[in-house]
């Protein structure tokens, strides 16, 4: 009998987790991982943090020897260009055609490129190659400008300051991390960056850039900014082209059910590119976080191995900026930012957890320098619990106490 074949398209941490879990589940068919990058899957989070400071190198999820040991075929530096659902084949950029029995799409996202914002002195950050180029550019720079006050922009600005550079953040919205944290918490983050010496300019409209000797001049509605390098972090675009070409529904990400199955039998999608239907949320969610991608990979692999396991892990992420850690668990209901939040701790002291409460249920938490609260809230979110705003604000009450009492067998 022919050995079954699983092909994984994409070389991120989610793919690595998926192939490892497939082998762990006893899948002993042929297993191939295709990556557009020339390297085994590696950890992306350090790229906007320690990698820029030189305190972290490129960290592989599994080293090359692991793939050999696990009989995982790696096809690196190659893109999937065509997917034929009827023939069950994927065509690669080099011309090779791979047949599959099951296919996992983990094509990720790419930085959104603004028209006219490219060329020498303009950097985007996604891959280790991008990060190496940016690190070299930043090392030589005196002034680093960042367009976009999201997580990438904030982390790069923090790295620039740590490297002893001048740093400017240009953001269109009224504050930093506006979409993720909302105006109130975003202001706290803006305050942190200002105190560290970043020139934070919010509400900025960038009109264009032009090269100048050794750098770029950025024209904004409020005047020009001269910098040695401009880092653009203004969001991402999901890499849905392959799925769309094959006719899979992929409007705002490749549409998958709670078990990661796409509309086509045998084809699954995970990670940043997957727009997942989660019954508890009443909407399709596409989450661009490292931990989520890894958990997706593991659970999708178990589904591909024949189990039926809906994704039920609580979404979680963190961001390190200077000596501060922002971390979060859960999903904010709706898509217009966090809305009304219940604060435990102190915004002024930059030590707080902000809870999104839906009736008597905690839906999400965003913390500054309170990772422990996030762990506790993560447990609550996953279990039956009941909470009031007053209880969440009361620091003498351990969050764990809000869990419904366990049903004890008698």
């Amino acid at each position, binding site marked *: 009998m022919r050995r079954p074949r699983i092909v994984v398209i994409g070389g991120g941490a989610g793919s690595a987790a998926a192939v490892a879990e497939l082998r762990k589940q006893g899948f002993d068919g042929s297993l191939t991982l295709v990556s557009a990058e020339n390297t085994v899957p590696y950890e992306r989070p350090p790229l906007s943090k320690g990698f820029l400071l030189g305190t972290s190198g490129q960290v592989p999820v599994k080293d090359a020897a692991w793939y050999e040991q696990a009989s995982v075929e790696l096809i690196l530096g190659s893109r999937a260009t065509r997917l034929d659902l009827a023939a069950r084949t994927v065509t690669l950029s080099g011309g090779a055609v791979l047949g599959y029995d099951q296919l996992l799409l983990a094509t990720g996202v790419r930085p959104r490129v603004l028209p006219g914002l490219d060329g020498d002195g303009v950097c985007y950050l996604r891959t280790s190659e991008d990060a190496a180029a940016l690190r070299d550019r930043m090392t030589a720079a005196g002034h680093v400008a960042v367009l976009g006050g999201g997580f990438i922009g904030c982390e790069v600005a923090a790295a620039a300051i740590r490297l002893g550079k001048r740093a400017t953040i240009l953001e269109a919205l009224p504050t930093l991390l506006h979409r993720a944290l909302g105006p109130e918490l975003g202001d706290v983050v803006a305050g942190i960056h200002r105190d560290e010496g970043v020139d934070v300019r919010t509400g900025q409209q960038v009109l264009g850039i032009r090269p100048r000797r050794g750098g770029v001049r950025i024209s904004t509605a409020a005047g020009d900014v001269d910098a040695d390098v401009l880092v653009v972090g203004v969001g991402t675009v999901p890499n849905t082209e392959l799925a769309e070409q094959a006719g899979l529904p992929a409007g705002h990400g490749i549409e998958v059910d709670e078990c990661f199955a796409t509309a086509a039998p045998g084809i699954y999608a995970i990670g940043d590119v997957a727009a997942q239907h989660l019954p508890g949320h009443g909407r399709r969610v596409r989450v661009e976080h490292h931990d989520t991608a890894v958990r997706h990979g593991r659970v999708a692999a178990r589904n591909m191995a024949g189990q039926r396991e809906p994704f039920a892990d609580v979404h979680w992420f963190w961001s390190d900026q200077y000596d501060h850690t922002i971390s979060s668990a859960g999903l904010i209901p709706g898509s217009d930012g966090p809305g009304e939040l219940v604060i435990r701790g102190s915004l002024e002291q930059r030590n707080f957890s902000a809870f999104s409460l839906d009736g008597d249920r905690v839906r999400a938490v965003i913390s500054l320098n309170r*990772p422990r609260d996030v762990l506790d809230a993560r447990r609550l979110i996953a279990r039956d619990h009941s909470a009031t705003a007053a209880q969440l604000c009361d620091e003498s009450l351990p969050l764990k106490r809000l869990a419904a009492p366990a049903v004890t067998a008698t």
Partner: protein
Amino acid sequence: METARWRDTINLDDLWEGDMAAVTVDGETVLLVNVDGTVRAYSNRCPHQASALDEGDLDGETLTCAKHLWEFNAVTGGGINPDDARLTSYGCQVGDDGTIYVDIGR
């Protein structure tokens, strides 16, 4: 204790079942965990990025590092997520009077 390397730390009375605590032994920060009466000692630094494990969570046998959610089996020290990680284990004994002794091997 027989060898000079065993150091007394806290008493079992101060480490309830399901609890963990950080103590300093010979200048090293050590994590003590009590899982259903079984006491284990590990380096308090997460093998990932050396974050303090006592700031994390102990839920049954599962120890979670608060920094990046790495998970370990608190009884064996083995990694759960990722499964190829491992906590650094230290020798650990509980004396007749409840004193928890730790040997960090130096």
